[in-house]
């Protein structure tokens, strides 16, 4: 003790005994203390990167100008409105250096060209991560409270989806994911709210099961429930991994609760037992088996329905259900009634009422029934259902949430059946129960949950969806775009979703258009499908006689298309009704018939138009006017265009095609008024029957 005190006092004396020495020592300590911060900075991670950057650009040809643009120190992009404090550019120094395009080493790559400059938006808005951090581990990989690792490149389109609620050409993955959310029934159980407060609404059409027994058998329902994809590979119905007993009990309840509705085959049989109407097997007209396939083809069933071919490829549209094994599913009398008029069984179906003749119905019905698989459901034998089974089936239906999609007698549609996913993309990591060995990111969690929902414990009700890896990625991207941040973004930056309108044409024509399901393929006034042309301005576009003839027999306009308008066997009065309505209502104010060129023109104007058509504008690269010489195969054939389109529409179209139909592929050729008038005159001279225009 004594010794230590003696030592300390001698040390004190040595250091501070002399005032000059004391001053020197204190100064030295102060100097060292002041040196701490610069030293730390010198050895900080970001400083190392900036040094590496300088040595990287040293040997480049434009080193001098690049070094001039380089600013040492911490860089920061601060945008209070967006809540952005990004220091990423401290290490990612060369983001805007065009000549670093060939540089593959991070953090020095040039940022690929995107519409948003980094100065205006920062980085974390799209990429996630911690913008204020200045070390790689904190900025990219932090899993601390309220922080999350950056978004993997695989799902980067989720970044776009936070502001852009609309469909964009540059984000196919996000678009597919959003379509799937509404098409695969996700939003029927999970509610998803967009930042503007609107909800994602389902676009699928799950069948009502209130009279399912009219359509199919309990055995088929059993096999279907056990494995929907075994019946139809492309169905959106997920697999609930039901036990034999569960599937048997659910099918028992569905069949026993099924009640015949007005118009069902059971009812038709009783009422019209003696009538020769289609749908009554007693008076079935003779089917023509040889015509089945061609009638299926002529009716363009494959535009909406897919069938698996011999090579195992599923070919056809996905609007209606796949028909590969339809013969295993539906009862013959139901199929007859359905083909006769699908709207009797299901008033909301997207299937058109074709107005087939009884013989056509018999032919088509036999053809469809031949599409069956003898092995499918061959071993299914179900004993008659007991009341206990039926009661248990109902409980399983309630527990499984079946009624979230399907209308079922005696079961209410559940509300908020599954967790809300509006903010799933920014779900705090601490709230997620990761499986052992799983990477701790929201994206891995979502992917695993979609791939194997039941791996997260026996109590999880979510079924197994049959999705490809690309579909899973797309869905994950769309879900990752649902973040809390997207709700704090200023309205001015937000791009709203383009929702379908609920446009409904009026009167008898409107009823006809509903029956023919025009909106399943055509878009009018912002409602409808995109398989066929938008008809919003069809009335300004076409001539009366042509429209009447087309509705009677829709021979194709574009020979290279495989999806075409089917023939609906309309009566003459219905045809006239529809033609009148379309010509009167679907008009655009921008096409003015009064100032348009006339339909008949002097020969020299027609000849001038012909020369412009062939030489200056080279329209023959896409269109056919003379079937002998022209081969253009992209736009519609114009051999009869003079009897199809109105002169006013043709003129306006030549002046600016996109103004009349946004997104159409025909380029705007900047035609002068005179040129457009001459070409219109030439086109109007093409009546098909009267030879090839003014060729002679």
């Amino acid at each position, binding site marked *: 003790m004594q010794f230590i005190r003696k030592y300390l006092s001698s040390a004190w004396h040595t250091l501070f005994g002399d005032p000059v020495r004391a001053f020197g020592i204190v100064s030295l300590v102060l100097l060292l203390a002041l040196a701490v911060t610069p030293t730390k900075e010198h050895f900080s991670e970001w400083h190392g990167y900036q040094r590496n950057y300088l040595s990287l650009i040293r040997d480049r040809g434009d080193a001098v100008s690049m070094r001039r643009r380089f600013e040492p120190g911490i860089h920061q992009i601060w945008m209070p409105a967006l809540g952005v404090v990004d220091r990423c550019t401290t290490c990612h120094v060369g983001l805007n250096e065009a000549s670093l395009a060939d540089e593959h080493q991070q953090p020095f790559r040039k940022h690929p*060209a995107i519409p948003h400059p980094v100065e205006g938006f920062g980085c974390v808005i799209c990429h996630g991560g911690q913008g204020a951090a200045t070390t790689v581990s904190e900025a990219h990989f932090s899993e601390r409270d309220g922080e999350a690792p950056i978004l993997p490149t695989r799902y980067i389109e989720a970044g776009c989806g936070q502001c852009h609620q609309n469909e964009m050409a540059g984000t*196919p993955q996000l678009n597919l994911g959003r379509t799937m959310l509404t098409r695969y029934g996700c939003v029927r159980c999970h509610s998803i709210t967009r930042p503007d407060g609107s909800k994602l609404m389902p676009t699928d059409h799950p069948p009502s099961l209130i009279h399912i027994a009219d359509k199919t058998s309990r055995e088929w329902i059993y096999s279907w429930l056990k494995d929907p994809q075994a019946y139809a590979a492309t169905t959106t119905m997920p697999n609930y991994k039901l036990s034999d007993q569960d599937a048997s009990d659910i099918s028992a309840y569905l069949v026993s609760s099924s009640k015949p509705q007005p118009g069902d085959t059971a009812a038709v049989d009783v009422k019209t037992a003696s009538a020769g109407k289609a749908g009554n097997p007693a008076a079935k007209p003779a089917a023509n088996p040889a015509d089945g396939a061609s009638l299926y083809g002529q009716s363009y069933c494959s535009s909406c329905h897919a069938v698996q071919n011999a090579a195992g490829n599923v070919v056809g549209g996905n609007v209606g259900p796949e028909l590969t094994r339809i013969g295993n599913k539906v009862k013959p009398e139901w199929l007859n009634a359905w083909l006769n008029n699908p709207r009797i069984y299901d008033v909301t179906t997207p299937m058109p009422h074709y107005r087939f003749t009884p013989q056509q119905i018999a032919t088509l019905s036999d053809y469809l029934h031949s599409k069956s698989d003898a092995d499918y459901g061959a071993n299914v034998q179900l004993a008659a259902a007991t009341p206990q089974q039926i009661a248990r089936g109902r409980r399983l239906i309630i527990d499984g949430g079946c009624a979230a999609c399907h209308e079922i007698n005696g079961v209410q549609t559940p509300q908020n059946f599954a967790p809300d996913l509006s903010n799933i993309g920014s779900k705090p990591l601490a709230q997620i129960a990761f499986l052992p060995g799983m990477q701790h990111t929201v994206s891995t969690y979502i992917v695993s949950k979609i791939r194997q929902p039941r791996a997260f414990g026996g109590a999880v009700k979510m079924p197994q969806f049959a999705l490809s890896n690309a579909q899973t*990625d797309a869905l994950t991207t769309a879900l990752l775009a649902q973040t809390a941040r997207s709700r704090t973004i200023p309205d001015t930056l937000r791009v709203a979703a383009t929702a379908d309108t609920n446009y409904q044409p009026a009167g008898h024509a409107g009823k006809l258009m509903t029956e023919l399901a025009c909106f399943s393929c055509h878009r009018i006034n912002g409602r409808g499908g995109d398989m066929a042309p938008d008809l919003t301005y069809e009335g300004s576009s076409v001539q009366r006689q042509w429209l009447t003839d087309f509705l009677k027999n829709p021979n194709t306009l574009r020979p290279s298309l*495989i999806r075409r308008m089917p023939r609906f066997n309309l009566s003459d009065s219905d045809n006239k009704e529809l033609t009148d309505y379309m010509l009167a209502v679907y008009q655009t104010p921008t096409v003015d018939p009064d100032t348009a060129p006339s339909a008949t023109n002097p020969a020299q104007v027609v000849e001038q138009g012909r020369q412009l058509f062939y030489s200056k504008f080279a329209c023959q*690269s896409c269109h056919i006017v003379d079937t002998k010489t022209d*081969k253009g*195969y992209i736009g519609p054939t114009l051999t009869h265009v003079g009897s199809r389109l109105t002169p006013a529409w043709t003129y306006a179209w030549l002046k600016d095609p996109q103004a009349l139909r946004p997104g159409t592929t025909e*380029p705007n050729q*900047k035609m002068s008024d005179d040129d457009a008038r001459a070409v219109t005159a030439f086109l109007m001279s093409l009546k098909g029957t009267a030879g090839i225009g003014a060729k002679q």
Partner: protein
Amino acid sequence: MMKRVTPRTLRSSACLALLAVVVLAGCKHPGQSTTALKPTATGAAIVETSGGHQLGSTGTELKDPLIVQVNDEQGTAVAGALVEFQSPAGVTFEPATMLTDASGQATTAVTLGSIAGRYQLAASTAGKSKPVALDIVETALGYQQRVGSILADKYCTRCHDPESSAERVSNYDNLETKPHPFTDSNTLNKMTDADLTAIIQYGGPALHRSALMPPYGKTLTLAEVRALIAYTRALADPPYQPAGTVYAHK
């Protein structure tokens, strides 16, 4: 003195740790799979069945799986041969090593790296005396190039791509003056970005070429035209090198 050393030692130990992790991770994966996969046969050649020369978005899985086939000297498929897929950093295979199936084929799902450009992948198998390998090329498109590819599908490829498909009939053969396919790099690489912009915006006559190429200047925005050019450049083989750019020399 201590103060100066600490960060450096920390850094170097961190580097060492990182290196150890990388090495361990690098060892672990093939180590596991090779012990699990016991090849029952060896082949003499490895050929590409399908899945090469695809275009995908950066960081995403290619649409079609990569399928290679292992053959013996007679060209017969060999089942049970060990195939290993290798790639530059960033590309992942699922799975990366596998045995060929009964038809001698090995199928893997390829996820591209996050950098746009061409990726040279390799598939190799043991072979009788020495390993045999096969080179496969895939291309990753960045945002701008992907926008270009979508625009090209809509406006360009009907004429510029001679291949017809069932869904889409090519117009190439119908044209008197044949358009240059986007893969015709001998021609396109000689054209500058300004040339391409002019011909897209003002049509063929802008460069004294055929009027069958219409002008798209009033239909497409300048950004869209640039995206189209970026896409055609991404397809170039050999790669396009703009004149005047100075490249770093190592």
